[in-house]
């Protein structure tokens, strides 16, 4: 591609010149040299298109420098040239593993600008869809973690669940991945009549399978424990310094969840627990994800029970022209805090849209935590963050 060759040389040079990332000089001691290794962007464990420039001393990593931009589409610039509703399908392409949350965050930001009242049924449908999405993202990500440790089977069990949830999404939204379902002022369409029943059925089946397929199979496995316990260990303070949110933060014991602390939509009316774990390593992140899945199931049941009747779309008029000002939307996506900042100049296109994607912020952990670990430990640490390429590259 364009500029690829130049890029190869210059990034590593720039990395070495800057003082902070320089490797400790271990060459003097034994007359040994470190090995430079280029991991990615075409690498099966890099969650898409990430490139890590590694400096290895034997199998120990002494320097890790993430390079990104291989999937950068400059979504923020494209959004500036589109009308407000036309940005929603773009947000689907951000974190393509949990698209509903992106749509929700963007719509919250624009609704903050417009000061519009959302019909309660639409709010419940949004929460229902977001929690199903969280399940569809958390369960395969447990599989990804195991895949990166070398066990191939759990990922297929995970995708089996995602597949079934995607079928529900297909029936509701008409699409399996890029939904464009949550709209400014509500949702696109009401739920089809048989969908609540289908979701009940699916949830009942999932509860049966969950313990055996994702907990009993994995949790006690000797090799899994030895590969994950104590890997990527960090304290809560350190995690907050690095700007982590979501499961990577909660696994260090910091009790922070946007759904509870910065409530949006109808979450205040629903009953759920914020899961934390004290260990702060990969195993703890796995446990947090497992327990969050159970909380999501709880939330889905509550939304289905409390779902009111009524309209699903507020009256928005034909053309959106929000007043001058700025709007903020903040949701808890499966990976952490997803924030949108929309600035309006009174026209029908946004003046500026800024996405704060959890994958992007969480990835700063890589260059802090990986040095000192072995090369194979990079994979479980990636599984701890579980980043998505579309998210960090916008």
């Amino acid at each position, binding site marked *: 591609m364009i500029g690829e060759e130049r890029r190869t040389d210059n990034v590593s040079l720039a990395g070495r010149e800057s003082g902070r990332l320089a490797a400790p000089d271990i060459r003097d001691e034994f007359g040994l040299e470190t*090995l*430079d*290794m*280029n991991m990615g962007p075409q*690498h*099966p*464990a890099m969650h898409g298109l990430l490139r890590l420039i590694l400096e*290895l001393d034997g*199998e120990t990593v002494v320097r890790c420098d993430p390079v990104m931009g291989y999937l950068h589409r400059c979504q923020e610039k494209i959004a500036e040239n589109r009308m407000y509703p036309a940005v929603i399908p773009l947000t689907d392409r951000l974190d393509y593993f949990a698209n509903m949350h992106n749509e929700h965050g963007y719509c919250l930001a624009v609704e903050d600008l417009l000061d519009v009242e959302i019909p309660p049924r639409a709010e419940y449908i949004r929460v229902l869809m977001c929690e199903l999405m969280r399940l569809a993202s958390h369960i395969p990500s447990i599989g990804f973690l*195991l*895949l*990166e*440790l*070398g*066990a*191939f*089977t759990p990922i*297929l*069990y995970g995708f*089996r669940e995602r597949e079934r949830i995607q079928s529900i999404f297909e029936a509701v939204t008409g699409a399996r991945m890029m939904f464009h379902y949550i709209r400014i002022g509500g949702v696109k369409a009401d739920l089809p009549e048989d969908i609540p029943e289908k979701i009940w059925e699916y949830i009942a089946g999932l509860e049966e399978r969950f313990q055996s397929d994702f907990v009993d199979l994995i949790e006690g*496995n000797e*090799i*899994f424990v*030895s*590969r994950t316990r104590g890997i990527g260990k960090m304290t809560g303070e350190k995690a907050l310094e690095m700007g982590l949110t979501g499961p990577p933060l909660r696994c260090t014991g910091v009790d922070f969840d946007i759904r509870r602390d910065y409530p949006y939509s109808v979450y205040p009316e629903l009953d759920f627990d914020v899961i934390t774990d004290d260990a702060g390593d990969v195993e703890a992140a796995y446990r947090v994800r497992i327990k969050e899945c159970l909380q999501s199931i709880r939330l889905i049941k509550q939304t289905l029970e409390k779902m009111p009747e009524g309209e699903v779309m507020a009256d928005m008029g034909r053309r959106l022209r929000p007043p001058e000002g700025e709007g903020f939307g903040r949701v808890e996506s499966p990976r952490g805090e997803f924030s949108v900042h929309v600035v309006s100049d009174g026209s029908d296109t946004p003046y500026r849209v800024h996405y704060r994607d959890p994958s992007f912020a969480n990835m700063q952990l890589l260059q802090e935590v990986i040095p000192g670990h*072995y*090369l*194979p*430990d*990079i*994979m479980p640490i990636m599984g701890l963050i579980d980043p998505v390429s579309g998210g960090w590259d916008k």
Partner: protein
Amino acid sequence: MSTFVNYLNLEPWRFILSFGAVIFLVLNLAAVLTMAERKTAGYIQLRFGPNRVGPRGVLQPMADVFKLFTKENVSPNRADMWIFLAAPIAMFIPAALVWMVIPFAPNAVVTDLNIGLLFFVSITSIGALGVIMAGYGSRSSFSLLGALRGAGQMISYEVPLILSLLGVIMLTGSLSLMDVVKSQSGGFWHWYFLPQFPMFIVFYIASIAEVKRVPFDLPEGESEIVGGFMIEYSGMTWALIQASEFASMGLMSALTTTLFLGGWQPPLPFLDLGNFDWIWFGLKTALIMFTFQWIRWSVPRLRMDQLMDFGWKILVPVTLIWLFVTAGAILVF
């Protein structure tokens, strides 16, 4: 007709024919095992596996082989071509050669070497050389890491592997595999896996490590070093590496059967099939192969330091202790 058959039974024709048969078997074993592997994986993972070519997908290996034959053999620009191309051969030949001393049935063995086990030990050690050649020859940091891991792992795990053989050698008093099988005759309670149970387990684990399969597939390390020493291979060179891996997997299963599960001896004396005892040998070997595959699709991979710890701190002491126990038992009884 019978004179012709008897003539074929004379050296060197007997050797040439039987060796040809064994090579044919080994090459086909790779194809059959690929198929079995994919089917096993499919059923473990709640899917079908290959089911498009032929009835229930049984012709899939043929399609694979056809594809691999027609594929271009790409090599890195800066690779050391001689070493790069010689490495798959250096891996395949040792794996195929050891089949010479495996007894399939009472009279079916290519050469009944009286130092069969020594032959096995020395030839399998050469396998590590092929891995190093592949990693060094392809000039890639991933390959180099994979080769270093492979060399370290194979050499380390050879120690418990050889030590666990010693108990059987002590009980038999011979290095010939034929003698080992013969001394296990008379029902499954005479097989060596009972008196030598710890050695059996150690041999089984060390042979998984020796053939580089999950959970000891660090030299390949699909998710971290993307194939390790074989990352730069394609087409038939890659197929040869795969074939040698499957051949050595079959070899290790066959050896486990021979040493600990009575080789071609039937489990109960009245089930003796005479010249058809190779059926028992085949069944037992297939069972061991299946457990290899079962393990492969069920567990994650160890890390290098954990692997070394496991080999040197657990497997080697266990074999040493059981060696003393065996020696004491022989002295006492």
